[in-house]
């Protein structure tokens, strides 16, 4: 998952696209170590654990859970992965640029 995401972020770096990681591994120090080791550069939210505020509020019960939002903030897909996820993102970027 992570190598795939890394490639995606790199490929879409000049596009209107953002990957936001909502992390449940632990405190900021622990997450900094993981990000460094895994070469993760995209934005993170430090939630502390799986019962952090955002996973709780959003009712997340399995990890990873993935939401895809269009440029207007509307939820367009939930729990896509791999190629389907990538195709959906590319399509939504095209949609955003067309407007």
């Amino acid at each position, binding site marked *: 998952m992570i190598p795939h995401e890394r490639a995606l972020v790199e490929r879409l770096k000049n596009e209107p696209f953002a990957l*936001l990681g*909502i992390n449940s591994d632990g405190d900021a120090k622990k997450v900094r170590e993981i990000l460094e080791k895994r070469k993760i550069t995209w934005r993170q939210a430090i939630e502390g654990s799986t019962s952090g505020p955002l996973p709780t509020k959003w009712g997340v019960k399995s990890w990873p859970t993935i939401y895809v939002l269009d440029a207007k903030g509307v939820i367009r897909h939930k729990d896509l992965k791999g190629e389907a996820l990538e195709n959906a993102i590319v399509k939504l970027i095209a949609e955003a640029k067309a407007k």
Partner: protein
Amino acid sequence: MLVLGLLPAVALAQDGTEKKEPQAPAKESVGQDAHAKKLADIDKRLGEARKKFEERFAAAANNEERKKIQAEGGPDKAFIGEYQALARDAKGTEVGAKALSQVLVLGVMVADAASAKAAAKTLMAEHLESPEMALMVFAAPQVLGKGEVAQALESIRSNNKTKPVAAAFVFMDLQALTRTKGEDTPELRALYQRLAKEFRDMRFPVGEQTYGEFADAWLFVKENLVVGKVAPGFEAVDENGVKWKLEDYRGKVVVIDFWGDW
């Protein structure tokens, strides 16, 4: 006074109508008052002992020390006897029912099955109409024998008309419905909406959460986190302590990835 203490304040006459017992003398109400005070005192000391235990646990230097503290089993066990004694002294009263409920909860938590089961049986036999029975609705599958659960629950359902018990059954029905029909039926939503409306400020028999909080959390997800809805905004802090919010990314296609490196 002891004999009077055994008499329930309200008894059912043979024709089924409520018959008030003769007014209890002042001495009796002092006895009940003392029982209530005793209950509050035990609750308070249990709360303090738990807090102390948690503080010790939190202050432990390493995992080994934490394991050691955990192995002691915490303070709950030491309080079961006190609640049992109070339940005997205050037999048949609401204070007695509350003391039995505590025995039941603590018994389940420290795996003292015998104490928990005995308390459950007494609650069923003597307090079937008490609001304390809400706890039994939750605990029955854990403390009663497999063959006894359904009958006990049916007995509570048909005899107990209190609001806490009604709430507990809505919760149980909602769980059963989720198991059999999944998360997305209109019937399920109606049960959550009922909890949020009718039992909003009532707490679960154990813990601090209210039914309103519980139902709101589910309804929030079902109403907002669905395809076609604008994602609800949130604020977050990154690994360097920098604050950001979802709205910062408006105008971009956004993937929100709940993840962990495990």
